[in-house]
């Protein structure tokens, strides 16, 4: 994509947002970060941040928000 296309994408606010589900495999960095296996992947994404309202536990099924190239865990699916 050229710069024009790239900037137009951003100008038009075309950043992509997705919801994926995942499993918490670890809590790291003094429980401020998580490792999450997303959409059944065998490799976990590490260093993921989460909303303050969520108290993570390993093996939680969580809702992950992907915003363009970023990921945040919103909370546990109960």
């Amino acid at each position, binding site marked *: *994509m*050229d*710069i*024009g296309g*790239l*900037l137009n994408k*951003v*100008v038009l606010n075309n*950043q*992509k947002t*997705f919801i*994926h589900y995942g499993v918490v495999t670890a809590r790291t960095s003094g429980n401020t970060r998580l490792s999450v296996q*997303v*959409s059944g*992947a065998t*490799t976990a*994404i*590490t*260093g*993921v*941040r989460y909303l303050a309202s969520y108290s993570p536990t390993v093996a939680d099924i969580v809702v992950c928000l*992907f*915003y*363009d*190239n*970023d*990921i*945040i865990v919103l909370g546990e699916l109960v």
Partner: protein
Amino acid sequence: MYPTSGDYRAAIGLDHKVIAKAEVWSSERKLLDLDIDKGKVSVTTSNAIRRSCEINLVTDRTTANLVPEDGFDYIAPFGNQLRVYRGIEFADGTEEYIPLGVFVITEVLVQDKNEGVSITIKGEDKSIICSRNKWTSTYQMVTGTLEASLTALLQNRFPDIEVNFPTTNVTVNQIILGADSGVDPWNDAVEIAQLVGFDLFFDVNGVCVMKQFPTLDASTVVATYEEGNGTTITSLDRNISTKETYNGVIYTVEGSQVTTPIRIEVWDEDTSSPTYRFGIFGSVPTFVTTNLLSTSAEAIKAATLLLNTYIGQQEVITFNSIVDPSLDVNDVIYVKSTGARVDRTVIIDSMDIPLDYTSALSVNTRVVRVVGSNEVVEIGTV
């Protein structure tokens, strides 16, 4: 510009014998030489895949032997590559070839005619290998230098890739790619590089390289195209448009890995510029949001580099000329034409390099004005 000999430089603007060749390679093994009748190599900064080629082989009694019977034949489009060259044969019989790219064969057209079998081969540079290998699951690009992070990303999709990246002194944050299945990893890599002010592409030797976007202050003029005796220009068009002109970049850095959101504004504050922010053109900002960077200094640098690429785009100069295959996109050249009132240095945006001796080189350029450090007018956090 590809480095050439003094003899080549002396001969390129004068009458000379044009030579061109193409070779078929499988990985690092040369399989075949092809006899080119005509064709071209197109190079552009406006596509993520920078180089493409189309070559027509000489039609004679032997051409039919090259027609692929199955997917493993030499010119079948299943992995074999073309290396294309154009050059000069000097009066003493010596030759100097300029490489025009390494292309993965993507398409073969065979036509059976009265005069024989005609074969046209199309190819795209090696970025197509990365581009076709779409993300099959999420990929985590960990925090690190831009060059290390991009190397790891590209090797994930193209393990045999050869890279030659400079030390960028840019640290990029962790990001996640491939959340949307089927996304093109090469596009992702090019976007990441562009967002922080770098150009990512495969060069004429098939090596993946990264360079800062060109600015006239740091560049030297590599070729001169001046009207008058000895001119090599055959025609010139000039188009002045503000369709894609911005005179400000609002650069925002925010994301889960960014400690504090950052906002940078860079504007054209040169009172002598036609796109001066407070002139009659007015303020025309564009906006970039990324989670790649972490510091104001990095964001200022990236925003300034992006403004450099946009601020001069009010004017496009297109010309045809005698072919110099050593030219490349992003080369800085000097063009002078009295009729079109052109007398300036420009940057090449795209060009078509013909492989036959009758066709002209077609070049599109843009005018660029350099943004000074005093034009960073607002730095702060939101």
